[in-house]
């Protein structure tokens, strides 16, 4: 155990934790904005109640996303200074753009939205939540472009004197096929999660005997969001697999536990591997499917780990270039399985609630609620697949993870920070979950229609929105 191992654990824990909240922020910001738009268009008070109810839940989640995001901005420098120095010229640019173009927008307009109910004309107030939502959705693009560059570095040269990366083409970085494909995939997954969040909350209210018509509507809306976003996730996921085959064949092979090159290659459903012996003892496959996923044809070869390792050694010198195969294999399957299960709930639910129907079986609502943690877990496994699959590199072909860590930071320092982050994050998870639960249980507050429909400037008492 050294500072490198602990720094990796810390990055993994803090990033995964952050990524529990971010997809919800991305999706829910738009959901809340859409609800408020519906109120603005129709003037029906139940949309205002829905806006305020889901708005409060959104803000509870938003706060966690913001504070856990601060860590990310500092952590590259704190624990990965060698990485930062090498990549800052390229990688820092999208991060700076993210702060300047997205975070300011998001934070400033969220403040205006929370406190502006009685200060701003209705139309302007509506615009503030949309601007905040745009900020959230835009921020994801920049950070994913930065992350995509680590997996498929483009638009740069390595300066022969300083040995640091130098940006030569920002357009190439921002239009990196990996960046765009990942952005679509992550955005889709975010809306799946947000849709299932709305579904779970609505289902909980209905289960608790709330006969408010409001939740019948939001249930439908959540299911529809999940189903549509699910299609986006599936299509972009297919595209991601093809990009893997093209740019990260080692990750694809490892995620499939494909030790030897196969033509045609089957998609593994279940395998028990022998990592030391570079082979699988049990492997149940669907023939041709991997070839199709990776290349759109049923007969193309897919390269295996052993061959790719030999290629990497020839290219980069002696070393172990194989990522953690069992982790990737199962992360890939859990991502797809849990994600599809979540989307399946969306599609099935849409059918079951067609034309104003509402199922009476309680287990159906419980299943719909369970789809939320499943989809959140799918997001996490997707992230694990991406990040673990890039190993042993931080920047593929350019910088190894082992060479990226801060040389001056001691094991003790990282042990302290890792412990404190984990403990604090654990405590905050409990606080957040209890708060969400309390607000869901309390349900929407009745809206005073007089106060809601006037812009008289008379301060409305909204304790949950103020301090």
């Amino acid at each position, binding site marked *: 155990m050294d500072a490198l191992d602990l720094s990796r654990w810390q990055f993994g824990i803090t990033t995964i934790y952050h990524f529990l909240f971010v997809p919800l922020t991305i999706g829910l910001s738009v959901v809340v904005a859409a609800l408020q738009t519906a109120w603005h268009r129709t003037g029906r008070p139940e949309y205002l109640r829905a806006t305020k109810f889901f708005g409060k839940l959104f803000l*509870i989640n*938003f*706060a966690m996303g*913001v*504070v*856990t995001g*601060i*860590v990310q*901005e*500092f952590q*590259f*420098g*704190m*624990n990965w*200074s*060698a*990485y*930062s*120095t*090498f*990549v*800052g*010229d390229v990688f*820092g640019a999208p*991060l*700076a753009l993210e*702060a*300047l*173009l997205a*975070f*300011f*927008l998001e*934070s*400033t307009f*969220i*403040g*205006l939205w929370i*406190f502006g109910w009685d*200060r*701003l004309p209705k139309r302007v107030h509506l615009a503030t939540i949309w601007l905040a939502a745009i900020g959230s959705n835009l921020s994801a693009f920049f950070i994913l472009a930065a992350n995509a560059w680590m997996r498929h570095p483009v638009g740069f040269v390595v*300066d022969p004197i300083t040995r*640091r990366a*130098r*940006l030569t083409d920002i357009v190439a970085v921002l239009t990196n096929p990996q960046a765009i494909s990942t952005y679509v995939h992550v955005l889709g997954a975010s809306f799946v999660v947000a849709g299932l969040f709305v579904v779970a909350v609505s289902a909980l209210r209905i289960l608790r005997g709330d006969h408010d018509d409001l939740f019948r509507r939001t249930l439908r809306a959540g299911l529809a969001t999940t189903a549509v976003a699910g299609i986006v996730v599936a299509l972009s996921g297919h595209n991601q697999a093809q990009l893997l085959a093209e740019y990260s064949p080692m990750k694809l092979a490892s995620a499939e536990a494909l030790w030897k090159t196969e033509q045609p290659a089957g998609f593994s459903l279940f395998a028990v591997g022998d990592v030391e012996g570079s082979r699988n003892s049990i492997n149940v496959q669907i023939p041709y499917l991997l070839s199709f996923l990776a290349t759109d044809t049923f007969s193309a070869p897919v390269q295996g780990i052993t061959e790719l390792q030999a290629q990497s050694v020839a290219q980069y010198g002696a070393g172990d270039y194989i990522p953690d195969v069992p982790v990737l294999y199962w992360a890939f399957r859990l991502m797809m399985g849990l994600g599809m299960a979540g989307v399946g709930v969306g599609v099935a639910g849409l059918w079951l609630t067609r034309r104003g129907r509402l199922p009476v079986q309680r287990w159906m609502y419980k299943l719909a609620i369970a789809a939320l943690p499943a989809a959140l877990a799918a997001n996490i496994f997707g992230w694990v697949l991406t990040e673990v699959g890039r190993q042993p590199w931080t920047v593929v072909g350019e910088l190894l993870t082992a060479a990226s860590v*801060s040389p*001056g*930071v001691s094991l003790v*320092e990282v042990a302290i*920070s890792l412990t*404190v982050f984990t403990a*604090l994050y654990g405590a*905050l998870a409990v*606080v957040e979950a209890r708060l969400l639960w*309390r*607000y869901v249980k309390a349900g929407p507050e009745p809206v005073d229609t007089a106060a809601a429909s006037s812009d008289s400037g008379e301060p409305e008492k909204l*304790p*949950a*929105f*103020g*301090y």
Partner: protein
Amino acid sequence: MDLPTVWFVAIAVLWTGYFVLEGFDFGVGMLLPALGRHRGTALKAIGPVWDGNEVWLITAIGAMFAAFPAWYGATLSGFYVPVLLVVLALIVRGVALEYRGKAPRSEGGAGVDTAGEQWRARCDLGIVVGSAVPAFVWGLVFANLVRGVELGADGVVTSSPADLLNPYALLGGLVTLTLFALHGAVFVALKTDGPARFLGRALVKRLAPVAVVALAVFLAQTAAGWVTVVVVGLLVAAALLAVRGREGWAFVATAVTIAALTVVIFGSLYPAVLPSLTDPAFDLTVANAASGPYTLTLLSWVGGIFLPVVIAYQSWSYWVFRRRVTA
């Protein structure tokens, strides 16, 4: 001015914006225990803006990463423990600020709302500690930057956390701590009405002597004599204006004092960004820590276009909430 210098100035501007803006919301946060039953009013005054203020920090750090990667890496790893404290404090503070108003509704209604009181008390503790720690640590970090750190030819800081607790740096921490507290007290007087406003003025009276002395001693060791006289004079003026009820001008004066302090700090660094006590030859400088001209040109265009836009809409948000907050 060459591009790296332009970006050194730009980063100084971002830090200035951060200290001037978050300075007062740190101050309000720290002063909660002294605000008694006006805590809620004071927090309402910073409520709409503190999160936007914090983005100045995120942008300053992001800009350091993009424009001076070696500075970013060496500083954040070299100041690992202090930076960790800041990050932890900002996490606790942000959650406490957002969750304070979301107290459990007490069952039954009538009587003392003990659950709610307890919840708010815990959040208040988070806000106080989460505001005071970064207010102190930023001063400590920047004073250490000015003083220099043990920095080898490899660009790695080898100062131990204990080395960073030297008297000059501790004084720097005291300066930002007291200055932000004073700035926050002036903000309370400026943005609230009724008893809270007078409480703000009373706090200015109590805080000003400490803040003025700390700033004077620090500047005397850091800047030219006339700069010290002017900046300290400005802070004295700020306190006098606040006490006389000219809170707007007082706030301008504390803001300019903070800006001047930041300029002094960055001015004494230049052309180094991280001076080495080991050997001046190992200094990280504007020239050797900077990114290439392509990146700096790109950042200049984007920053030149969008920073004014950001300033415009943030100013508008301050305009929207310009009214004094009442309980």
